[in-house]
């Protein structure tokens, strides 16, 4: 029989399929678990608040809170870059539009639906806020002197996560701390209307602005002023009322008035200002300075396995010049051309994109050299570190060889960390910058037909840009001027929208601006008409109006909802 059992071995292998996987769970002792009662102390509640902040910084290039993929790639400001289309196909799809489908799980190389991943991570952040709010509710008031303030911070953070979901997906399930598990399972993404969802987000920011101190000791915390800023941003988005197919059908004047008065209050506080040099927004040395209204705090050598650095940008460094990976996020020609100026230093609105930018001939806004590194020009203000063009790029034949710079620091910065080939930094990710806040007000004023009041704000940013050449090593022919007056609303609007593109370029806002204004289709079509001649990978790119303004609701979530979630139009 010995002989037989020897030859049976190969058959027995097949029999041991699917035995008791994971059964060890039954025996293991729970580790240091705290019950809700035990957590409910003043100190622990702040620990739960910290845990909620933490989720802002737990992001990653596959689900970033710096919105370079969805904000920049979809807007024609940057190409995906990296090693060709299949290198994160889900982001290639953002540049092409048509491949965006409700189920992206089969997209290489991850075979993970990144749209679903980001959705899920936002709801994880929301659940951290909600469970902390639950603990506060169950805590006797005399044990928690700071209940309202902590609740305000949590509602602020919850609203930040919801805001992200809202601008990506439009129709989302609203889950708050009052809901039971059964109620959550019965909640669909259409229980509230588009406007009602904005109301919910605005209510959280409003509560935060009413219950937080104007200034916080800890620079990373939300304050009454940063809540006011987010409230203004929310109301600005809400003011552009959309129909079911995302067409802007009305601009709500009352909401715009409130945007103006909120920004007035923020300005009057004197807490914020513009840096003298635009560069200081993108250098770790100056982070948490006066222009940073709310930022994700990044850190290194902090006891975490890889450092809580800018994982969201880990792919975006060039292939050379002190880095080695991975050449993602490549600015487009169209974007670079937007910085060209005429002899009076104003944008070349009508003919900016006729030819590719030529450093020897074209006058430019100095903000170009803060935003984009290109062949022959210094990288991050260092005259010794000259961008090498194709030799710095990953797939120059497809995407060209520009490098976006705002989310990167100098390779020798002591704010730099690394894991494998991926460089990261402790550079903060600024979610709300004061210049952005000022432009919301200018935008609201213009839409309120008070464009002459908007002119000084736009000019203030242009004057600051003009004064921001000290670090630029005279790499280009700079010419930037200010506007005298705008003849009409159309001109003012054009200037404002241009100003947002160049002032906030590559900061992850542009696509959402286009959708808010209701001009995504025409802007992207115009971009594609020329850019696909320069970058043939775009040949089949096609933006479908009334569809591609928003991402699909992830198919996995629709499935898990048992089909009660409703897919967005067109998908």
């Amino acid at each position, binding site marked *: 029989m010995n002989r*037989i059992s020897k030859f049976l071995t*190969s*058959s027995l292998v*097949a*029999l041991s399929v*699917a*035995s*008791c996987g994971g*059964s060890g*769970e039954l025996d293991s002792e729970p580790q*240091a678990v*705290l*019950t*809700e009662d035990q*957590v409910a102390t003043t100190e622990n509640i702040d*620990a*739960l608040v910290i*845990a909620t902040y*933490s989720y802002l*910084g*737990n992001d990653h290039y596959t689900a970033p809170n710096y919105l370079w993929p969805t904000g920049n790639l979809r807007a024609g400001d940057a190409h995906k870059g990296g*090693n*060709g289309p*299949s290198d994160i*196909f889900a982001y290639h799809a953002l540049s*092409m539009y048509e*491949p965006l*489908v*409700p*189920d992206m799980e*089969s*997209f*290489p190389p991850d075979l993970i639906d990144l749209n679903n991943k980001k*959705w899920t991570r936002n*709801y994880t952040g929301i*659940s*951290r806020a909600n*469970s902390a709010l639950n603990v506060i509710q169950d805590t006797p008031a005399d044990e928690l002197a700071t209940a309202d303030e902590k609740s305000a911070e949590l509602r602020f953070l919850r609203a930040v996560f919801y805001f992200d979901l809202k601008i990506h997906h439009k129709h989302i399930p609203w889950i708050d701390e009052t809901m039971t598990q059964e109620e*959550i*399972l019965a909640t669909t993404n259409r229980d509230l209307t588009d406007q009602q969802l904005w109301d919910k987000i605005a209510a959280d920011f409003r509560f935060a602005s009413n219950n937080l101190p104007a200034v916080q000791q800890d*620079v*990373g915390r939300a304050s009454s002023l940063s809540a006011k800023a987010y409230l203004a941003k929310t109301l600005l988005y809400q003011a552009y009322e959309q129909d079911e197919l995302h067409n802007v059908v009305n601009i709500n004047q009352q909401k715009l008035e409130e945007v103006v008065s909120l920004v007035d209050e923020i300005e009057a506080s004197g807490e914020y200002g513009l840096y003298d040099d635009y560069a200081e927004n993108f250098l770790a040395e100056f*982070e948490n300075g006066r222009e940073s209204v709310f930022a994700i*705090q*990044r850190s290194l*050598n*902090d*006891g*975490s*396995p*890889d450092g*809580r650095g800018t*994982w969201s940008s880990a792919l975006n460094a060039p292939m050379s010049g002190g880095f080695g990976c991975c050449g993602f996020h490549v600015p487009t020609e169209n974007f670079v051309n937007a910085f060209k100026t005429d002899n009076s230093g104003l944008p070349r609105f009508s003919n900016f994109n006729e030819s590719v930018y030529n450093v020897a001939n074209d006058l430019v806004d100095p903000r170009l050299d803060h935003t984009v590194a290109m062949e022959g020009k210094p990288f991050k203000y260092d005259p010794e570190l000259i961008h090498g063009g194709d030799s710095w790029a*990953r797939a120059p034949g497809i995407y060209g060889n520009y490098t976006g710079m705002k989310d990167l620091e100098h390779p020798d910065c002591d704010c730099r960390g690394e894991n494998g080939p991926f460089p990261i930094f402790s550079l*903060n990710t600024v979610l709300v910058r004061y210049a952005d806040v000022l432009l919301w007000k200018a935008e609201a004023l213009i839409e309120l037909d008070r464009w002459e009041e908007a002119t000084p704000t736009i000019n203030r940013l242009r004057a600051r840009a003009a004064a921001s050449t000290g670090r630029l090593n005279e790499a280009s022919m700079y010419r930037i001027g200010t506007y005298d007056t705008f003849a009409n609303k159309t001109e003012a609007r054009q200037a404002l929208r241009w100003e947002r593109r160049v002032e906030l370029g590559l900061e992850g806002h542009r696509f959402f601006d286009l959708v808010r204004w209701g001009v995504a289709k025409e802007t992207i079509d115009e971009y594609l008409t020329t850019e696909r001649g320069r970058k043939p990978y775009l*040949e089949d790119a096609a933006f479908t109006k009334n569809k591609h303004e928003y991402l699909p609701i992830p*198919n996995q*979530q*629709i499935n898990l909802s048992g*089909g009660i979630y409703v897919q967005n139009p067109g998908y």
Partner: protein
Amino acid sequence: MTTYVPRYATQSLFTNEQDEGTAYDITGSNSGTLPSGFVRAQTGNADLKWETSTQINLGVDFELFRNTVYGSFDWYEKETRDILTLTQPIATLGEGAQKWVNGGTIENAGVELVLGYEKWIETGLLEDELLVDINFNISSTENTVTTLPADVVNSFGGNGQDKTILGRSINSVYGYVADGIFQSQAEVEEHAVQSGAAPGRIRWQDLDANGVIDENDQDFFADTDPDFIYGMNFTFKYKAWDFNMFWQGVKGGQIRNNWRLFTDFTSLNIGSNYGARTLDAWTPENANSDVPALTLIDNNGEGRQSSFFWEEGTYLKLRNISVGYTPTLDFIERMGLNDARIYLQAQNLLTITPDGTLSEDPETPNEVFPVPRRITFGLEFSF
């Protein structure tokens, strides 16, 4: 009961393991130990119990003709119930909603057959007796997921509605079905609307026949379970000589050949070394190729999970072959030895695969190093 656990930080780098910790640099200090907090723990399940198996096994062992023919036959059916499974909860339930549940039932059913023949034979041709010892075994097993609770039915692929793992093998693969290569613009136009379609590109089957290629055109298209596996062992002894040969094989079962990402595409790993197959890529003149047209720009999503990368895992291997010589007792004693043998042995000398197998070795289709072929010449002495 809701519980909390402290958790400082976890991994940040790898795609599936992002940081789920709670540490945060709230003071803007950029380094050092950070304040941190608690996360809501994995949801408990008070009803959790051991999984249970029941197995029916019927078998016969037999020895015939004075033990020259022997063998056994077994049939079994094993049902494993209450298998522990981690749920995949809807995102809105938030952190810690995942829980272990006793999730469903899997059936394994199979047969095994062993046959052997062993005899010292007088051949008439040879002056001495020849030992012939031949063994054969074959087995086949079928795996079926028969029940799953609602909160785990989607943890194994499928669309969560009409296409689920139920009734299929747990080793089933879900994705798109590649249906050859578009040969012409006319074929592209005849086909359902497929974003990225062009002559030379992979055609995805319109499984739901709605005229558009989208996520609903995925299905379970393969499983990794072999139809059967088998082995054959031959031993012959004649006088001082011995000979052994062992063959082992697998019939059926699909394998994913990840090397095709490199061998069949220039778009999926730009700048890496491409395989020689790309030299035979599709062109209008080379229409019979199964390698898609070369491009640097993959707008057709050809790296997606699809049947393109899957092939039959069938193989037959000569695992071992050896010939040995044992000197006579006289000789051994004269040399002052207790025992001696001289032999030549080869392992993994031969792998036979059917036509159409692209994998170098279907047993280890995605390994960087193949199973080694080892040839040994041996002298054994014991004192």
